[in-house]
């Protein structure tokens, strides 16, 4: 059965022609290029690198970056719609795009020198270069300001020491945006693949995001040339990048939820028990209604946040609410979908368990659900609970 992308409140009518086209185009791409191969990659625990040239060809790397740097120059809402469609395929594919777009191209575009922009943005847009973002450390996740990775000034540059963990795309990256303390202040550095003292071993044993490359980044007396310093000081640098990525996640999670909802509706209508489709039972209908209800709200939150971003009026706390809510309902939708599908729900061909397992990571990466709760708690009360 063809995918029916649920849009109960006709949000599509609110989109520009370009945004609609982006959504349809990425939807078809996912249907034809991602869904047929993703299950096998997930089982094998491999990243589908064959998709990189296809994604760059479609313009999915550098979606909001202006055309003069090789980007598409689309709106944030357009970017969000693309993330929604990609995550309907798999969170790993969306994560790959999120990192390249929001965590690598965004800081280079926003804080980089003209030289850095010209050197990296066109290559990152064409997929010739892959990027990663190193903030989290083995002992510093929710509390990045405690990071141990540090930089010292040397002749002509900086000496970087430390280790990062849980870094998406790390092993396959040509360029790493790395955050380290320099004179006690968090500072960004561009670390190029092949730099002496820099290694990026892949982390194994994940039962979630299995089609994504997750790595450690290790810096041992790694010499960074002067021109690779990123001109932003303090935690606001990396946090501004995370706000971009979290925004994309809030749309992405909706895509995963829409996928399992559609599968659930189709399954419930065709699965016969007690001589009738299980869709005719009240308990199943209630489950479908819960999903429809929450997906519709999540779509509206994502859409409105997109428009606020397009107008430059968004606050990062609003992104926290969207990420927190949308990932949470997507994960619950997966669990409900699993129940509706019965035993079939655990088979990889139904995609449900893959989405569920992926979303377990999405719930705690890019700010855990709990940290977003505390960000919102502080916004309401003015009292930070984590200090």
């Amino acid at each position, binding site marked *: 059965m063809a995918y029916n992308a649920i849009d109960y409140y006709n949000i599509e009518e609110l989109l520009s*022609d370009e945004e609609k*086209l*982006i959504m349809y185009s990425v939807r078809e*791409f996912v249907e034809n290029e991602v869904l047929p191969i993703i299950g096998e990659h997930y089982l094998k625990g491999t990243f589908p690198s064959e998709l990189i040239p296809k994604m760059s*060809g479609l*313009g999915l790397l550098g979606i909001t970056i202006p*055309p003069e740097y090789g980007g598409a120059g*689309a709106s944030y809402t357009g970017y969000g719609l693309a993330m929604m469609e990609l995550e309907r395929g798999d969170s790993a594919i969306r994560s790959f795009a999120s990192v390249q777009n929001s965590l690598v191209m965004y800081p280079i575009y926003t804080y980089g020198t003209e030289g850095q922009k010209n050197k990296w943005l066109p290559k990152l847009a064409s997929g010739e270069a892959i990027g990663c973002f190193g903030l989290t450390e083995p002992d510093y996740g929710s509390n990045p300001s405690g990071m141990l990775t540090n930089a010292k000034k040397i002749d002509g540059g900086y000496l970087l020491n430390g280790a990062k963990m849980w870094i998406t795309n790390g092993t396959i990256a040509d360029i790493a945006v790395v955050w380290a303390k320099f004179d006690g202040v968090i500072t960004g550095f561009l670390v190029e693949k092949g730099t002496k003292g820099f290694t990026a071993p892949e982390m194994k044993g994940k039962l979630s995001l299995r089609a994504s490359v997750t790595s450690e980044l290790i810096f041992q007396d790694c010499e960074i040339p002067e021109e690779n310093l990123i001109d932003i000081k303090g935690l606001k640098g990396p946090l501004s990048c995370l706000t971009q990525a979290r925004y994309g996640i809030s749309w992405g999670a909706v895509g995963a939820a829409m996928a399992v909802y559609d599968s659930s509706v189709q399954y419930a209508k065709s699965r016969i028990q007690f001589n009738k489709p299980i869709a005719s039972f009240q308990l199943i209908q209630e489950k479908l209604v819960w999903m429809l209800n929450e997906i519709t709200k999540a779509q509206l939150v994502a859409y409105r946040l997109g428009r606020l971003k397009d107008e430059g009026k968004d606050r990062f706390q609003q992104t926290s609410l969207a990420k927190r809510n949308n990932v949470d309902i997507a994960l619950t939708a997966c669990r409900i979908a699993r129940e509706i599908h019965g035993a079939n729900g655990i088979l990889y061909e139904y995609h449900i368990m893959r989405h569920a397992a992926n979303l377990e990571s999405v719930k705690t990466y890019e700010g855990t659900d709990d940290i977003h709760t505390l960000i919102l708690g502080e916004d309401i009360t003015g009292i930070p609970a984590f200090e």
Partner: protein
Amino acid sequence: MNILVCISRVPDTATRILVGPDGKTIDTQGIKYVISPYDEYGIEEGLRLKEKNGGTVTAVTVGSEGSTDILRTALAMCVDKAVLIKADTHKDSYFVAKNLAEYAKEINPDIIFMGRQSVDYDSLQMPSMVSEFLGIPSVSVVSKLTIADGKATAERDVEGGKEIVEASLPCIISCQKGLNEPRYPKLPDIMKAKSKPIETREAIQTDEKVTVLGMSIPLKQRAGRILGDGDGDIDELVRLLHEEAKII
């Protein structure tokens, strides 16, 4: 090469179609429109031909003001020019063909592509009518095409096999599935298409040759029944044919 692609705006093939209150048109409420899938093969073939030989690809449609959306899609796929011949209400095939032919006369294309049929009204008349108006050859249901030395060599699907035909240019190629794999519009091209102009012109009016009297949704077929191969099943089959189907 000067390449013309005629495209049609149709309801998305996944849409559930309902008849409108007048009983003669479809209910357009909430319908998502797309380029008729067979026309997409025409756009793709036109673009490939241009990429190989140079030239321009023009997409033209006859339709309402709202049809600019499919022209935008065609521009996002990288056609050079988009033209809307404006007709306010649905017209018969003769009207559409006449307008397409008049436009073709004006721009004098080397080759014209169109889908083998539009998947809404399925009248299957357009390629033949336009070729008749223009007095040029038309090759229908083409699944492979080669252009060389001013000639088109086309492979077409015929019952149970293939037929290979040759036609002089200019000619009309009606496109069949398999001709190519249409490209997805790329995000940068989608954004560029936004600022490309769409030429709008008024349609030439013609007398209505075919009038729609009514439309109806086909009645739901009853589900078939499968019986076993026991003696009792044969008795049951005879009983059903006699009592329910009443044909023996």
